[in-house]
């Protein structure tokens, strides 16, 4: 029964994927009364920033077609505003000559829709929204045109400390941290987007209730990451579903500057779940990720946050397709793999189940994949790692699959 239902689910999701494929859909034309675009004459940065400041709630600011050189960061702090260009490849805000600010565009107001424009070569992050509830990022392209480079900005699309976040049909290339990064937020959908040549394609961090589906994560260092980190205002990340994604060939070298958590991501990983709780990974297609398709791991640095749990718990892996991969493990996985003959199976767990002086924890990692899907635990036990303590095992952990979180519903998704 359950197998048949799952097969049906997979069939439906294949259809959904075809319907939502990012490469074939076009944004709908603007609805309702459409204002005249801003003038492209004169100092466009000043014109746009003045319009963003003077905007009234409910207003649409239309950007003209063209490539605009901006020298300072832009910001929006008015609720209910739509900022819309002529198309994600037609209206380009180019920050190559940026002289100040930590990002290209900063949104700090609620109920904002950003769509149909591109942001290029920001010195810091591309588009950031902070404390901005009900935000939509739709048909946007954020990229660093020189390709992977340590000097690129950290995040392409960066909502943080927000409720109700929708990212859809967005393309991000060459972010030196994560292409799409959602942090310290609640109720999130990231769908039908393309992330490529970033260190992390999509990252959900210290967040609750996220659905990540219909995306293509290819040619990143790591495809899709679900992390929880200590010592932050919001932690205890939980309840993320990752499904119907294409997670392929994430073999780009790790070009994150040292010190950032993603700098330790081994090149060639598909999905990484680190710490966090109740994460469901299903119906995805993994192929040609050279280190491992799925990496399950604990947070390994010292921390002082007493509320923090560094272990991944209540994880479910099921019904994913796993192609070739694991044939050339990189980074921290390389020496561990070497001890096992140089290759890794599809699913890799560090086998850490306790920290400090603590006792082993029941982590409930449910690997419900076809029997031929390979699995290994390094059996490392606890951090700091003692290589001599490595006790590799291909046995899947004993677990009872955690109940799947309900689909994320956004109050503003149809806007």
């Amino acid at each position, binding site marked *: 029964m359950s197998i048949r239902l799952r097969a049906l689910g997979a069939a439906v999701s294949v259809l959904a994927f075809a319907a939502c494929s990012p490469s074939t859909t076009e944004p709908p034309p603007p609805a309702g009364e459409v204002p005249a675009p801003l003038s492209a004459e004169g100092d466009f940065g000043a014109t746009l920033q003045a319009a963003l*400041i003077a905007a009234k709630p409910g207003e649409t600011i239309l950007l003209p077609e063209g490539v605009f050189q901006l020298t*300072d960061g832009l910001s*929006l702090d008015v609720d209910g505003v739509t900022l819309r260009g002529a198309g994600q490849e037609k209206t380009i805000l180019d920050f190559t000559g940026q*002289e100040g600010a930590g990002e290209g565009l900063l949104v700090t107001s609620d109920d904002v829709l950003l769509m149909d424009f591109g942001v290029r070569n920001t010195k810091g992050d591309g588009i950031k929204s902070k404390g901005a509830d009900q935000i939509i990022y739709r048909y946007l392209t954020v990229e660093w045109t020189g390709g992977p480079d340590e000097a690129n900005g*950290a995040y392409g699309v960066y909502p*943080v400390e927000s409720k109700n976040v929708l990212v859809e049909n967005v393309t991000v290339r060459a972010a030196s941290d994560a292409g799409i990064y959602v942090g310290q937020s609640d109720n999130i959908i990231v769908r039908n987007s393309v992330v490529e040549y970033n260190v992390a394609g999509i990252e959900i961090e210290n967040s609750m209730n996220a659905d990540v589906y219909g995306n293509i994560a290819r040619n990143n260092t790591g495809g899709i990451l679900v992390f929880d980190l200590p010592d932050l*205002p919001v932690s205890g990340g939980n309840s993320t579903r990752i499904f119907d994604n294409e997670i392929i060939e994430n073999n780009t070298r790790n070009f994150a500057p040292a*010190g950032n958590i993603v700098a330790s991501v081994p090149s060639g990983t598909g999905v990484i779940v680190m710490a966090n709780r109740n994460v469901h990974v299903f119906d995805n297609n993994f192929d040609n990720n050279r280190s491992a398709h799925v990496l399950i791991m604990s947070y390994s*640095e010292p921390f002082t946050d007493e509320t923090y749990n560094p272990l991944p718990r209540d994880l479910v892996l099921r019904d994913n397709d796993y192609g070739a991969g694991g044939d050339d493990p990189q980074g921290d996985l390389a020496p561990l793999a070497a001890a096992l003959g140089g290759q890794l199976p599809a699913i890799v767990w560090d086998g850490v189940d306790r920290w400090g002086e603590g006792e082993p924890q029941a982590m409930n990692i449910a690997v419900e994949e076809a029997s031929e899907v390979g699995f290994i635990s390094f059996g490392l036990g606890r951090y700091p790692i003692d290589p001599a303590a490595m006790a590799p095992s291909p046995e899947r952990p004993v677990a009872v699959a955690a109940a799947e979180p309900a689909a994320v519903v956004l109050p503003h998704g149809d806007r």
Partner: protein
Amino acid sequence: MKWQGFLAALFLLAGCSAGGKGARGPDLDVILAAGPAPVLSDYGLFSDVAGAVPAQGVLPYELINPLFTDHAAKHRLVFVPKGASASFNAEDVFSFPVGTVLVKTFAFAPDMRVPDEGAYRVETRLLIHKTEGWAAYPYVWNEDQTEAVYRPAGKRIDIETVSPAAETLQLRYAVPNQNQCKTCHQAGDAIEPIGPKARHLAHEGQLTRWVEAGILDGLPEGVAGEPYAFDVSQPLDARARAWLDINCAHCHKADGSASNSGLWLPATEQTGARIGLLKHPVAAGRGSGGLKQVIVPGDPDASILLYRMASTEPGVAMPELGRSVSDPESLALIREWIGAMETP
């Protein structure tokens, strides 16, 4: 040259007193209007705008430690409507009545070792306590120095000067846009002043003068301010924390625009990881400079905090707004502070 300015000022003063707005003093209708006035003189905060002479009831004040802004000289004024006063708060910003205006004028001179010689004003920022909360408005001075004009979109201005440490500087000085004002002045959903807290103001009898002028109410006995950050007779830790407080904590606090970093730098913060001790960055990107922790006790060169203070690259430099050059004196202070910490 100076005489010309003086004569011009006299002339303008005469013009004002013959019926200009300035002579009437602060205009509460303009101050409390829904939007900003087009020019600075409209507010009546100066009896002589060109000469920067404050109107009656508008009081100059100084912070013990000002935020570093490309070596600009800052001239602060406070106006509280007659009959109302701010109430004292030991830790937070004083609670100012509606109608309060905080005025901050940024000025440069060709040589900042003698900041009064040939000084010229660049911008004046107003923080106004409107009925519905604080509003921030930037005004940019005209070339003749006779008026400042509302400029919400901000501006870059090329400035040549010599720093107090005798460096020749070519500044790309940034007048912030109105939203950037809010970025630094954010407190949760609201915006509020940064400077007028007891610990930044309590020196040389200043708060007593505020009470005498009717601006402040409820001042307890014996309120002490933070030490001046560069007064080497004071304890190093307190000086460094005072510097971080005024230069960083407006964003790096629980309800500030950098709250999500978990790096909180008010002088009142006591938790080691919060002030950056051995803390890993979250979203630093290339701002990490390849370093692993915000503060590595005893090792300033391994500390991201110092790296970002020293940088002038957007995306790396901290604070993100308000400076285009770094300050050697501040860098030396924080270097000494981290260097003196006990190695873990």
